[in-house]
Structure formats: C-alpha cells, structure tokens
C-alpha cells in the first residue's frame, strides 16, 4: 500500500509539474481503482460504471490543483472518487432529471411534446454556443465526433471531452432547474 501511495504521489506530482507521460501513467493506474469505487457506490448502474469512471477522471483532472505535494494522494483520490460517484448516483438515480437520456428527449421532441423540447432548448441556452452546438450535433443529429471536430477545427478527442463536459453542465443545470421548480 505504501508503495502505491508513494508511487502515485510521485507520478501525480510530476504530472502536475508538466510531465504528461507521468500524468498519463498515473491516470491509467488509478482507473481500475476508480472503477471499483464507482461500482461499489453505484448499485444497479453497471451499464454506466464506465461513464462514472470517466466523470471521476475528469474531476481528478479539473481539481488536481487542490492536491498539495506532500499530502497523501490516496485519501485525496478516494474523496474525489466517492464524491463524484455519489453525485452520479444521485443524479442518475432520480428518474425525473430531464436530460438524463438525450434519446428520450429527442423522441419527445419529435413526437411533439413541447415542454421537453422547450426544456432542452432552455438548458442549451444556458451553456456556451459551441458546447450547445456540439451537444446538438452529437446528441440530437447523431453526427460523429470526427465530423463535428472538422467543423469546429477541433480534434475528435477534444470534441468528445467537450461533449462530456457539456453534458455534465447540462445535468447540473437540469438539477438546479428542478430544484427551483
């Protein structure tokens, strides 16, 4: 255990200082642990475990500045993973979150349920234009990330990350909206 702690702390430290290879190794090695935490924390969501793992990875990435060199990395990692896994469960566990499944909203939109279409339109208006465009293109029009990337001058991977982040923000907006109502 101590080995893993010091090894990951060293990799993460080097990553935070700009060593991309060390950072990649760190993320790759922690992923199986995240997968276990996500699985343990998200009963009944086995199909979505990998999505949750990716959300946790992005959270680690987005919050990596909150880890201080010299602080143990495992408790930090577990805290992030538990929080995001619980958060994902909380969001997915609630059946009424409107952007839970874009396909459903799409169906609603086509079958003419005006409230769902309006909801999605409102939510998309709440994020920046490019992200909204990416969500529309991939989630509604069904375009591939490569096609969308070509249009926006982004790599395929960058489009996927942007899509994922936009979806996370939409869920956040939907949660907030739901709470207000």
């Amino acid at each position, binding site marked *: 255990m101590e080995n893993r702690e010091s090894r990951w702390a060293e990799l993460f430290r080097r*990553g935070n200082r700009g060593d991309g290879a060390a950072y990649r190794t760190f993320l790759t090695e922690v992923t199986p642990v995240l997968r276990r935490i996500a699985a343990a924390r998200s009963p009944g969501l086995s199909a979505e475990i990998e999505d949750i793992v990716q959300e946790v990875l992005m959270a680690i990435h987005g919050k990596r500045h909150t880890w201080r060199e010299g602080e143990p990395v495992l408790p930090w990692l577990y805290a992030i993973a538990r*929080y995001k896994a619980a958060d994902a469960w909380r969001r997915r566990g609630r059946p009424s979150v409107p952007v839970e499944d874009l396909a459903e909203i799409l169906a609603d939109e086509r079958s003419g349920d005006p409230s769902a279409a309006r909801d999605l339109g409102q939510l998309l208006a709440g994020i920046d234009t490019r992200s909204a465009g990416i969500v529309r293109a991939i989630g509604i029009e069904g375009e591939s990330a490569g096609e969308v990337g070509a249009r926006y001058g982004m790599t395929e991977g960058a489009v996927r*990350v942007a899509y*994922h982040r936009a979806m996370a923000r939409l869920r956040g907006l939907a949660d907030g909206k739901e709470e207000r109502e």
Partner: protein
Amino acid sequence: MKTEDLISQLAGEPVAAQGGVERRAVTGLGIGFLIALALFLPVLGPRPDFLEVVQRPIVAVKTILPLLLGPVALLLALRSARPTTPAPAGIGALWLWPAMALALFLYAFATTAPGARAVAFLGHSIPICLPAIVVLAAPILIAVFRALKDGAPTRPALCGALAGLAAAGFATALYSTFCNEDSPLFYAVWYSLGIGIVTAAGAVAGGRYLRW
C-alpha cells in the same frame, strides 16, 4: 468514448493551476469587504461617538467577537473546500461564539433592572440591524464563493455555511460600528440571528453553487 482515449486527452494538458484557492479567497474577501464598506459608509457609517464608547468592554466585544469570527470561519471554509477535510478539525471551536453570546446575554439579564430588560432587548433598530447585516454580508459571501468554487468541497452545503459564517462575521463587525444598541440583551440576540440567517443562506447557496 473509451476511457483510455479520455486519459490520453487529459494527459495532453498535465500542468495544474498554481496559486490556489486560499490566495483567491483572501483577494475575494478584500474586494467583498471594500464593496460592503462602500455600501456602509454613505448609508450608515460609524456612530459619531464610536471611538469613545468602544473603550467600554461591553461595547467593544460586539465588534471584536464578530471580527474574530470572520477569519476563523474563513479558515475553516477554506479547509472544508479541500476534498479530504469536509468537516475540518477545529470546527468545534465555532461553539465558542454562541457560548460567548449566551454568556453576555445572561450577564446583561442579571445586571439589567427587570423593568428595563424588554426595552433593551427590543431596542429601536431591529428593522435596520437584520437587513444591514445580510446586505453587508452579501458581497463578501459572493466574493468568497467565487474563490471556493475553485476548491473541491465534498460537503458543499457545509462549506457554504462556513463561508456564510465568515461573511456574516465581517459584515456584523462593520455594522456594529454604526449600531448604538449597547446592551447584550439586544446584540447577543439580534446579531446572532443576522449571522444565523447569512449562515443558512450560505448553506443553501453552497448546496447549489459549490457542487462540482
């Protein structure tokens, strides 16, 4: 998307932001307090006899207690914004403030003539006191929140409540220089209520805006 593709993407931007939440929180506090000051000075302003009356301990504590609460609660809010310490060590020290308020209230109750108690308790400025504390705390709370959003609070509502307590501490200290209600029968109750309102607002706002 495959997880390994995501990892490749993330590994392409390894460098972590430096500087951190603490520095931004202190800057935010400064800006928020200046805004509060800019609201306070033209509308209320310190009482003319402040420097004189503040030499009486019972008057001084109504400024000193909230003024100490501010930095202590801010420190705890900053620790609470770190993922591993949502309820930071030392959070129990916050009970000191309600304990002091209660002690001051009981002292004043015992030393005030029975007929004068209700007058001192109700005072003449509750409709100014409570809104003023809330309004003065708002810019501080917003500024501190902006910094805390960079953190990773795993209990966002608690983190928000601590931020609210901090903002209320600074705002109440500022307000107390205007307020000429010098009996703890007044300020131990109504200041505490104002601080409680801001803290509750911080908890609600934290639960909503400090999620990540």
